[in-house]
């Protein structure tokens, strides 16, 4: 057992070390959220005045969505690094080591989740600029929610990566899963009051259950509770349970699929 934990820690450690080493990646990955938040957000704010019957400004609404977006993209990218490792040969070094594949896959999920949580935490630093006030409690709960969202998405990433042989396939995945998951998650618009087909798509999107609780926690205190209730989908506890179910539903096959890679 101790040996397995050490293996898991090793895989995790490498991901975190690489992340902390790559300053340009951290800064670069801030560009997109900043664009969304300050250009897209500020630009649409005057038009998007109907949120919670005019009681919620668009930038505040968008802010938690952008946190979730940073988590989503970082998580999937970091899982997909398995494909890079395969292409550049490094994966062999791991596969031939006396560490079980299951442990390697779990280590990868742990590493990707940590890195994605950090990336989300960086976005949190922008809160004062948007006029969102966060207490320490809120920050702790937000970090936990980000970690769960990240774990779900990293598991999905590992599942996709274990079947992928080249980076070309990755762009396909970007366009056909990541983008729709992001757009449907309720990050940009509330998923109530939209056409029914859209609402149903949103409901099967795991990201929806990441965005929903993150929004409720992040805006608590900055926005009256009854306003929050108007834009939320479920109570936080329900979101968390659903998200955890998605996590399991992705992680079990991900570990299984990775275990079968040669």
């Amino acid at each position, binding site marked *: 057992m101790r040996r397995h934990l050490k293996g898991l820690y090793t895989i995790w450690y490498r991901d975190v070390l690489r992340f902390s080493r790559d300053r340009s990646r951290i800064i670069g990955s801030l560009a997109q959220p900043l664009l969304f938040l300050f250009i897209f957000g500020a630009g649409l704010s005057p038009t998007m005045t109907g949120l919670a019957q005019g009681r919620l400004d668009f930038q505040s609404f968008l802010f938690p969505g952008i946190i979730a977006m940073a988590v989503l993209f970082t998580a999937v990218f970091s899982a997909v690094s398995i494909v890079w490792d395969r292409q550049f*040969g490094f*994966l062999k070094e*791991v*596969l*031939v080591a*006396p560490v079980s594949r299951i442990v390697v896959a779990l280590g990868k999920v742990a590493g990707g989740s940590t890195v994605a949580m950090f990336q989300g935490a960086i976005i949190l630093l922008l809160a004062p600029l948007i006029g969102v006030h966060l207490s320490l409690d809120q920050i702790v709960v937000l970090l936990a929610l980000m970690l769960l969202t990240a774990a779900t998405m990293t598991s999905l990433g590992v599942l996709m990566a274990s079947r992928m042989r080249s980076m070309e396939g990755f762009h396909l995945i970007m366009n056909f899963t990541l983008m729709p998951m992001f757009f449907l998650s309720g990050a940009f618009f509330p998923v109530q009051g939209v056409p029914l087909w859209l609402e149903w798509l949103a409901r099967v999107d795991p990201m929806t259950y990441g965005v929903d609780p993150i929004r409720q926690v992040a805006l608590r205190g900055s926005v009256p509770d009854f306003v929050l209730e108007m834009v939320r989908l479920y109570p936080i506890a329900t979101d968390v349970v659903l998200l955890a179910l998605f996590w399991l539903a992705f992680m079990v096959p991900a570990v299984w699929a990775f275990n079968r890679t040669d």
Partner: protein
Amino acid sequence: MKAIEAQGLVRKFGDLVAVKGVTFDVEQGEIFGFLGPNGAGKTTTINMLCTLLRPTEGTALVAGHDIRRDPDAVRRSIGLVFQDPSLDDQLTAMENLRFHAMLYGMPRDLFNQRAPALLELVELADRADSLVRTFSGGMKRRLEMARGLLHQPRVLFLDEPTLGLDPQTRRHIWEYVIRLREQEGTTIFLTTHYMEEAEIADRIAIIDHGEIVALDSPDNLKAMVGGDVITLRTSDNAGAAQRLQAAFDVEVRQVNGDLVLELPRGDQAIPRLVQVLSNGTGPTIEVQSINLRRPTLEDVFIRLTGRTIREEESSTVERMRLRTRAWRGTRR
């Protein structure tokens, strides 16, 4: 106990039989070479021995552990240097070593003692904290050798460790291999398709189309050729070939406008050979050039398979394609 005992290893990729039942033993502390053209099954065999591929049939004991039943124990007792680099080039040399040590559960003290010593051995001590990204191909390969030895494996597998390196670096790599065996007493299993390089092995298995066609020490293998190799050019090759065949009772081959024959004690045979051509029955055949050399492993390979290894060399693209196909095959 032997370092490796392979028993009838077979590996199929779909319809393609890459390895057709190979059986051999490797002694402790031996340098054992697998020599053969690309696609002969060398890498497939290594991948089975190091538990990256399951054999379709047969099995092997590596350091006393069964590759089928106890792959984890096998993994703990082997080190590997792959054909293609397998370093994380975003990490430093030392970090790559540390990652490896952690994966193999090495105690910290042992790591602190071995890592600098091994970097010293492969002459990378001064680059320990440089990112691997900044390393040349030869430096990467040397670092991989240090890494492969870090956890004190009983057997070190080197799969074409000199592929794609310049001649000077290649020579260096082999010097390290010999030094390693002296310092660490590690059993070394290597594959190569460079004939000259196989010579450092104590014993060589020549593999062709997935089968071992010969297995012996380099000297004994070369002795199979039947003496020295004499290459000569004459004014009438066809006539000369006939006359030599009759006089020496050996096969005379024509290769690129030269006559090639193998004779024991070639140095003493040359005067007689010239005499046969100038004074034999019929008109004098003029000898234009003559060359005598000791046989090489290349000659052994030609003798055994009727082809040169070089002919078999396919382009890189083709190799990639074959490998991709093999990849897909394993997933079915």
